[in-house]
């Protein structure tokens, strides 16, 4: 029971990342009709926003080490901490949450630039061309990051206060041995929060209403004198921000490296397909579902029965779903039926 509960939590965690990326993919797909293979790169870009901020904050200087008295010893201390001991240390400690503030404008700008500069020209091109050009873009992002940050994963620390584990077992009465890292719980909450705000934005604002109308019938909305194109561009920006935030918050869980985007992208595409192309709810649902399935498949008990199942479960599910329910779990009729 404990083990199962933990696996569900683990799965929700990973599923949170899948869901956030898949949500962005679906948004872009539903509005602009573009298949964006560079979306994983945006996830990675977000993660590297956090890395960059941490690097900048911890630019260090040499300070005399007071704890060693019998000779002159120096230690590296971030300038920020040396200048403002209390506030500085706080900011350095909380670099990952602060990175969110950096990531939002950066990712928004990146998304808008990408849409205006490149994607815009590909609305009417065949899907194969869209896939190819964004694939090329993803390679470029990836290589630039590798050039500047190297090929090795760069671990990021969560703030000190949440670096330990929470004893969730006690909260819900499962006994004391069910513990779970704080940060992962925060990540899960964060994922829910972002997803909820995206849905709320689409559901309860006028802007969102127009966007939803545009997803249904773009031409009609255009005829009503609304500049739907501009709104779709902003939606692309939002999708980029969502992917970027997912990346920022994921850094303490998985040290970011240059190919993390590609790894997640393939899975997220599978998630989108399972959820149903163009269905936002489907993408989120499928994200969590596949995350949980994957984490169950990686349990030792399961692995002894079906060796290697954890490696392929997601793909296997995708194949079965596509064959049984070609539109995905919650796919709408008329979206991408060629």
């Amino acid at each position, binding site marked *: 029971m404990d083990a199962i509960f933990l696996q569900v939590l683990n799965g929700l965690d990973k599923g949170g990342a899948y869901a956030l990326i898949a949500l962005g993919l679906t948004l872009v797909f539903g509005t602009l009709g573009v298949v964006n293979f560079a979306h994983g790169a945006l996830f990675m870009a977000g993660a590297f926003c956090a890395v960059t901020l941490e690097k900048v904050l911890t630019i260090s200087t040499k300070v005399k080490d007071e704890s060693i008295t019998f000779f002159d010893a120096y230690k590296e201390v971030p300038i920020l901490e040396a200048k403002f001991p209390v506030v500085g240390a706080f900011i350095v400690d909380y670099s990952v949450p602060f990175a969110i503030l950096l990531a939002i404008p950066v990712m928004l700008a990146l998304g808008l630039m990408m849409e205006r500069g490149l994607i815009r020209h590909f609305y009417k091109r065949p899907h194969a061309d869209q896939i190819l050009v964004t694939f090329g873009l993803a390679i470029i992002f990836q290589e630039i990051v590798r050039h500047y940050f190297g090929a090795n994963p760069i671990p990021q620390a969560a703030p000190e206060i949440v670096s330990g584990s929470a004893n969730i077992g006690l909260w819900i009465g499962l006994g004391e041995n069910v513990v779970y890292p704080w940060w992962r719980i925060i990540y899960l909450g964060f994922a829910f929060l972002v997803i909820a705000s995206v849905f709320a934005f689409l559901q309860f604002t006028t802007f969102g209403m127009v966007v939803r109308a545009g997803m249904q019938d773009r031409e009609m909305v255009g005829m009503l004198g609304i500049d739907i194109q501009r709104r779709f561009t902003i939606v692309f920006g939002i999708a980029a921000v969502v992917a970027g935030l997912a990346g920022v918050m994921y850094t303490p869980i998985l040290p970011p490296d240059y190919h993390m985007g590609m790894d997640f992208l393939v899975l997220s595409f599978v998630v989108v397909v399972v959820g149903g*192309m163009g269905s936002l709810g489907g993408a989120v649902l499928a994200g969590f579902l596949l995350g949980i399935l994957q984490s169950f498949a990686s349990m030792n008990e399961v692995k002894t029965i079906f060796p290697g199942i954890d490696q392929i479960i997601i793909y296997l599910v995708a194949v079965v779903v596509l064959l049984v329910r070609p539109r995905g779990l919650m796919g709408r009729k008329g979206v991408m039926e060629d």
Partner: protein
Amino acid sequence: MNKSNAVSDWILLVVFSAVILTMPIWLAPFGANYPDLMQKFAIYGLFAIGFNLLFGLTGYLSFGHAAFLGVGSYAAVWSMKLLTMNVLPAVFFSVLVAGVFAFLIGYISLRRSGIYFSILTLAFAQMSYNLAYSVLTPITNGETGLQLSLSDPRVLDAAVGISTGRSLPSTNLFGVKMSGLPGFYFCAVVLIIGFFISLRIFRSPFGTMLKGIKSNQTRMAYTGLNTRPYLIWAFVISGMYAGLAGALMASTDPLAGAERMQWTASGEVVLMTILGGAGTLIGPMLGASIIKYFENIFSAFNEQTLNQAFDFLPDSIQGIVVDTVSLFVGEGWHLTLGLLFMITVIFLPGGIMEGFRRIGGIFTRNKSNTPSSGAVAEQS
């Protein structure tokens, strides 16, 4: 099929063969006439030609073609381990295994089209890649990759009394060692045969059918034709080509690793085909050679060679230039690849062959002769 067309096809084949077989001579000025690289030209050319049979003719974009290449090379190495070091059985088994594998994957993937097809093939390829790394380790030898060893049985070799002795045997074709130039000629001959088959497919009713599927599958279905068997055959043939390329890889260098199946490898063959010109006969070969050539040149550069190359510039500028250029060469070769990819898709969706046609169009001023391939630019 009229007669003059048939004649021009034969001319094309002869010219193609001549160009391939004389590679060691005319590549010398480019510094690319060493066997390793030329083998790569031939192998990847074959791979791209096979991919083109699927993508170029039917428009189905497979993103998992490297899986067949990987399976092919595993099959080839196993044939060398168990049967004989002769490459012919290896080639035979690779093509067979890759074909069966392609049939299985194609049977499922081809139920869907468009982006779904791309993602399904991608999913299958990733699945094979992950399996090759984990559970199938007894067959694939996991991360180390499958290699020959002294204790391999090699039943056929043993039967005819070829003993391996103390050192690892090398691949051969009835005694001719498959390294260096002979290896290249072997690959070249296989490539020419592959090209010939592809040419025949392009001109056959079967090929016409595939082109019909590309331009309007619904209408093909309305005429009462079941398009599925055609697609499956195209997919299987294309997979066999990939398996053949894998076999050649193993023949020239007898090891097989899972990284050959990774999806970046699949992306590379897509790029080769697009760069050369999807749907054209020579395009894929051209694209493959260009990419492999530049990969070879570019990744050889390092800071030192760059500094030497830009030595004539003033020091301050030299530093900047070297820094910028070093982004794109050596380790950064993939960046160039990505750029090339984007530039091709944006500006020249029909690839280099379309470029040629456009240039030709300027001179002949023959408007009706402008690009006829499916991937015509529709800049909005």
